[in-house]
């Protein structure tokens, strides 16, 4: 089943690789992944949709939380959250269908970003399932080309972020 994971991680080289490596090492296929900086430039927020067996979902979150660069990994699959995605779509349509295509775009609250004699380039955002519908509808008018952003998610729960405070360096931690 598809699992949606939201990860707050340090904006450091290799941090992305650690998260994706953890999934690929277990043979999980990543369906979508988005990552970008948040207000604090040292941190990024990542949203991953990944196909994981149900009984292993908890284990994946625990393993992610173990990564030193990961501040918090949260499973949003069954939690209250909003997930939005963006799609850029080019549709080639016959002259007589142009008005119909524009009408459909309007229904999905999509924006036309380019228009040519061949057809339109359209931008749409929304719930991933809604975008599936939009793409299917557009596909019925002619040949289409699609770029999807992958979902970006935000939890609606107030989950407390527990971070480790600074520790003293070179304390003989090593000699117990």
């Amino acid at each position, binding site marked *: 089943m598809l699992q949606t994971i939201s990860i707050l991680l340090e904006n450091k080289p*290799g941090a992305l690789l650690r998260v994706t*490596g953890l999934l690929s090492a277990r043979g999980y296929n990543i369906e979508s992944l988005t990552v970008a900086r948040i207000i604090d430039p040292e941190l990024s927020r990542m949203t991953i949709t990944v196909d994981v067996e149900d009984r292993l979902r908890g284990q994946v979150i625990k393993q992610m*939380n*173990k990564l030193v660069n*990961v501040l918090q990994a949260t499973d949003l699959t069954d939690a209250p959250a909003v997930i939005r995605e963006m799609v850029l779509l080019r549709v080639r349509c016959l002259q007589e269908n142009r008005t119909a295509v524009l009408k459909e775009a309007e229904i999905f609250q999509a924006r036309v970003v380019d228009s040519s004699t061949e057809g339109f380039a359209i931008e749409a955002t929304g719930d991933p399932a809604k975008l599936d519908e939009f793409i299917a509808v557009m596909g019925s008018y002619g040949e289409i080309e699609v770029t999807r952003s992958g979902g970006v998610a935000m939890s609606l729960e107030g989950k407390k972020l527990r971070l480790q405070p*600074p*520790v003293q*360096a*070179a304390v003989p931690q090593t000699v117990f």
Partner: protein
Amino acid sequence: MQAPELQTNSAKNIETGKLPELGKLMSGAEMLLECLAREGVDCFFGYPGGVTIPFYDAMVDHHIRHILVRHEENACFAAEGYSKSTGKVGVCCATSGPGATNLVTGLVDAMMDSIPIVAITGQVHSKLIGSDAFQEADTFGITRPATKHNFMVKTLAELPRIVHEAFYLAASGRPGPVLVDIPKDVFQARGHYTPVDTIHLPGYKVFTEGHAGQIRRAAQLVWEAQKPLIYAGGGIIAANASAELTEFAEISDSPAVCTLMGLGGLSSSHPNYISMPGMHGSYAANMSLTECDLLIALGVRFDDRVTGQLQSFARHARVIHVDIDPAEIGKNRIPDIPIVGDVKRVLQKLNKLVAELKPEFGDVHREARVQWWSKVRAWKEERPYDRPRAENEIKPQHLMDEIDRLSGGQAIVCSDVGQHQMWAAQLIRFNEPRLWINSGGLGSMGFGVPSAMGAQMARPDKLVFAICGDGGFQMSIPELATIASHGLPVKIIVMNNGFLGMVRQWQTLFYNNRLSAVQLDCFPDAEKLASAYGFRGRTIDKPWQLTQALQEAIDEPGPYLLNVKVTPFENVYPMVPAGGAIQDMVFGPVEPVAVA
């Protein structure tokens, strides 16, 4: 020589608002040595190469000892032996490219067995990274899944902080290997060294204390149980919780099994100790696991070599699982009481509560506990480990028995991987923690000799055996030079059966005895081999030579290579076929079973 670089991490002190005083001007290589010294490193293992020359140059004037090994993989194994025998962080060092890739097996080994290691690798000049320069490899990428965490140092300014972070990460929480990759120009750059006093890793979470409520519930369960059993693992050794474990076994009146990684956690001579459980564990240990009604799992990970078929493992038992790694809890077995914490801290609290509850509840199941103990003792007597002897040839078990007798539970035993490892684990006693050193999780052949080297370096006072098979020994022959040049009095005992015994055992039992690529038909003359390196060696093949030959090896002030030719076709029993339930043990030769 590079232009002096300004120390950018010497930022204003948050509390005083003052700029720190400029420290001593030194090179990156010198700073690294300074940081190692501050971390208490007295010696480390490595092999130089092009890009680490500046580091090796700085060593000339430094007190930290560098032990030159003969292969980088062995540098990491030696660091593991050093770490396992002392509890300190082991350090190893290799150059870029092939040096770094040769370390990988050792890093994964340390990862699987949770051994704190800091590995330092050189990297090509930062301007050349990504250009396929000579001896360039993506060490950072290659070692990411092989380490607990890894770093690439980009500037001299961040070097001291990263080194201290590496040591902190390696030793704290669930220990593991941490790698620091340092480009040549960072070794060479010069800057002002300011000691790092705090490190901040906001995303690194360590839970040591354990949930008070869960610990209380665990204490209650201990007295509710009629048939409790302690299942102790490598976590006990890593946390130095041996004394707490012993106390717990005694006050809770529970028998205990120690896993391959946990041997010596509870003294092998302790009356509550049963033995090792699992695939080659004892009948008593496996039956106790199957029949117990409370399993107190301490610093273990329910490994497949212990549990066998998971559904039937300790199937009547409620489970208390204490581990410092939250990801281990519920990974293979869902516990009734999960406790995330340092097993030492948790046991201290648990012992207190168990003792407090004892006057009130200690006698509730007195009758049942007495019966349980008599059952455990009966299992022990019913089927102890086989200790066969032969008149004209040395049985491998005979060899281990003799080593056990001479060690008296006091010697450090570093084992390689295979049949001899299992016999050694079964038959040699360990009366203290940190005496048994082996590659448990990864099962890396060639571990025995280099880890013994590291252990002997760390514990010069101790008698150190390296017990190897003839296969694993031949993977570590180059290190005889290291042993000889440092005069390390390691006693290398080769259990030589002329086969890759464990693979052959599986071919015999599960592949219709079709032996394939397991015969090792050319073994060097041990006496000549040892004398070629300037120390003594001997080959024996008769049982009456055994005691005297081992004694001679022990009495020798320097290293000794003893090649013991044993019965070739002896197999390790009991054995639980892979995937089988652990109570379904095989105790002796069976008809070969074909695998579909």
